[in-house]
């Protein structure tokens, strides 16, 4: 545990998204537009992890994620944890829960879907299947397996 902490510089105040599956960290940065900030961001890729083998980690200074953002993380990295840091101390630990609905960040795989129009935000709801999870576009009503929408 101690070794891990040293691999990415500690932050004084802000959010640490930990236990992101490796290869997903970069994707999260762009999808959640974390990079559209002046705050300092530290990212660690392919760090050793007991839980995942390898993991990514993102630290954003002076930023606290909204409940929506946190739950949306669950789509890409179901085991991620979000730690809130203040004065170098852990002041909160949140485990994302899969939301019912996900707006804006995904793109509908149906090329004839009206949600591709510039002025509209995409909107999907989760549909639990017997052995999998589907996403249904709120506009075109088409249902896709989660992997198709995320890829």
């Amino acid at each position, binding site marked *: 545990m101690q070794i891990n902490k040293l691999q990415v510089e500690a932050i004084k105040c802000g959010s640490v998204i930990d236990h992101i599956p490796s290869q997903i960290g970069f994707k999260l940065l762009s999808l959640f537009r974390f990079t559209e900030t002046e705050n300092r961001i530290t990212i660690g890729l392919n760090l050793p992890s007991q839980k995942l083998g390898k993991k990514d980690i993102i630290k954003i200074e002076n930023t606290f994620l909204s409940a929506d953002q946190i739950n949306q993380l669950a789509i890409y990295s179901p085991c991620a944890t979000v730690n809130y840091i203040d004065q170098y101390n852990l002041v909160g630990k949140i485990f994302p829960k899969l939301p019912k609905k996900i707006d804006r960040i995904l793109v509908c795989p149906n090329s004839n879907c009206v949600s591709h129009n510039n002025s509209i935000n995409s909107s999907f709801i989760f549909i639990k*299947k017997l052995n999998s999870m589907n996403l249904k576009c709120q506009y075109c009503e*088409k249902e896709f397996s989660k992997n198709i929408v995320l890829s």
Partner: protein
Amino acid sequence: MRNSLYKKNIISINDLKRDELELVLKKSAILKKKPEPGLLKNKIIASCFFEASTRTRLSFETAIYRLGASIIGFSDGNNISLSQKGESLEDTISVISSYVDAIIIRHPQEGSARLAAEFSNSIPIFNAGDGSNQHPTQTLLDLFTIKETQNRLNELNIAMVGDLKYGRTVHSLTQALAKYKKNKFFFISPDALTMPSYINDMLLENQISCTRCQNIEEIISEIDILYMTRVQKERLESTEYANSKSKFILHTKTLKNARNNLKILHPLPRIDEIDYDVDKTPYAWYFKQAANGIYARQAILSLVLIENHF
């Protein structure tokens, strides 16, 4: 009966609960028996066809005139100044909603009716077809016709034939009939055009019986409704089209063992999937089905626009 459809958008058959379907069917039957020509007097309805669909438009417009309402609108989005000036769908709907009491929209993109409803300032939107997605009034008229001919919407054996992959009418009708008990479905289509998995999954999850069959003869003696659709040549490889064509064409001889109550439906236009001889049999019901479209559309328009009916 409380009219829960009042002021509601009619975007997708999935948005309608079973008792709302019942309400539309009941009102359709009343209007068929007893026209109420003044029901929507003083109402103005916009008919916005961003893509041409003459049958659907004429059916809606007839329904509107029969109820005494007035229409404004356009019949082909390509030829109107709105599209030439590049105005967005959102802005068009936003403007038109300030003129009228309801908007009927036909648009080539899936989801456009749902989008229109977000910009219509609470003016009800009627989806008259959004791309390959939904066409709820078609499903309502299908249900009305089935109920009228069979006296029930449950415990029916329904065969659907043709392009089950892209045919939105069969998807919506299956979804609607799945709300009723003990219906059995038989699907007959070329391998490349089978029912999409989301429909099969929905049936499986609700433990509704559905069987894939090779041809119509196999099940003709078991079914109450034979819902035919067209297989478009361009959807299939030429060899598959040649091989499968004969299996999905209905001839009078195919009907030899049909039940007396069998009715053949088709969303029209028909090309060559139903032989013209079939028209003379008592089973042919597709033209009466099309005529029922007027009553079903009258019913849904009046229920959405007037609160107290019964």
